[in-house]
């Protein structure tokens, strides 16, 4: 693909993605008072993250087993309110160790 063929794609994509983010941010100016809307927005982040995590996390590593190990480590550390970085690093390390063991066995 030539660069001149690539450019329209790039511009279209960037424009759509940006407007999807920007328009609501500019359109909603006042503090929302409606109790249902407030409640909806309160729960929404947790719902979005949950949907994106399960079941995708179980396919995010080399094998289901290492993913389960990683998720377990993450769940335990998160339950005790450890930092995001520590949870992410520990889960990755657990997966790496598990994958290394799987390779040897």
């Amino acid at each position: 693909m030539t660069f001149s063929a690539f450019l329209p794609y790039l511009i279209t994509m960037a424009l759509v993605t940006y407007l999807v983010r920007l328009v609501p941010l500019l359109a909603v100016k006042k503090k929302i008072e409606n109790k249902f809307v407030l409640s909806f927005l309160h729960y929404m982040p947790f719902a979005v993250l949950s949907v994106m995590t399960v079941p995708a996390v179980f396919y995010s590593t080399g094998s289901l087993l290492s993913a389960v190990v990683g998720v377990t480590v993450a769940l335990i550390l998160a339950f005790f309110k450890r930092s995001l970085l520590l949870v992410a690093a520990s889960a990755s390390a657990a997966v790496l160790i598990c994958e290394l063991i799987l390779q040897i066995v």
Partner: protein
Amino acid sequence: MERKGFKKGIVDGLPICFGYLSVAFAFGIFALSSGLNSLEALLISMTNVTSAGQLAAVPIMVGGGTLFELAAAQFIINLRYSLMSVSLSQKFDSSFKLPQKILCAFVVTDEVFAVASSQKGEISKHYMYGLILTPYLGWSAGTILGAVAGNLLPKIVITSLGIAIYAMFIAIVVPPARENRHTLICVVLAIALSCAFHFIPLLSKIPSGFVVIICAVLASTVAALLFPISNEEEGTQQ
């Protein structure tokens, strides 16, 4: 105060930055193996900052798809950012004027949104600047690293980093779900819906961008109807 906010933003953004390094790294490899060059891959990352959207866009570009197809795919996959922007509009304090909103809208991502909305009370523009800076750099740097040096790192390391972003999500969701039963029920409901869309044959045909919207809207609506938040919870939300 300004420096404190910015510094806290940087600290909170670092885990996202590391997570993005690995995801963008994978994108860089993917883009090159699909036939784009490293400059094109980098430009896509720097102008879009959206993992799922970018992954979907490359085959459309390389396959010679129409601009409409590309636009429609991006719109559907990234529509969840609209919900996040609405939510963030309630979270930003009065330091956010038009220019700040125009700037920050550019890096409304799942992870940035998650961290921003998990803060107590309103957030300042300085905090937001710090929060989006390193993830943006990580996303760009990861792409170029993946595109240029993708074959140097052992594959097993890249594979293991794949879980990093999800582990972050877990770290964000679990503590509030542990404290609040209503939040927990919302989370369980969202997971159940997500699994239904993944495993039930007919539903699994629906594009992933749609699935996130449908499941999240359903779960949040049910939770909001069953357990409207009290004024106290509102205080922590806004």
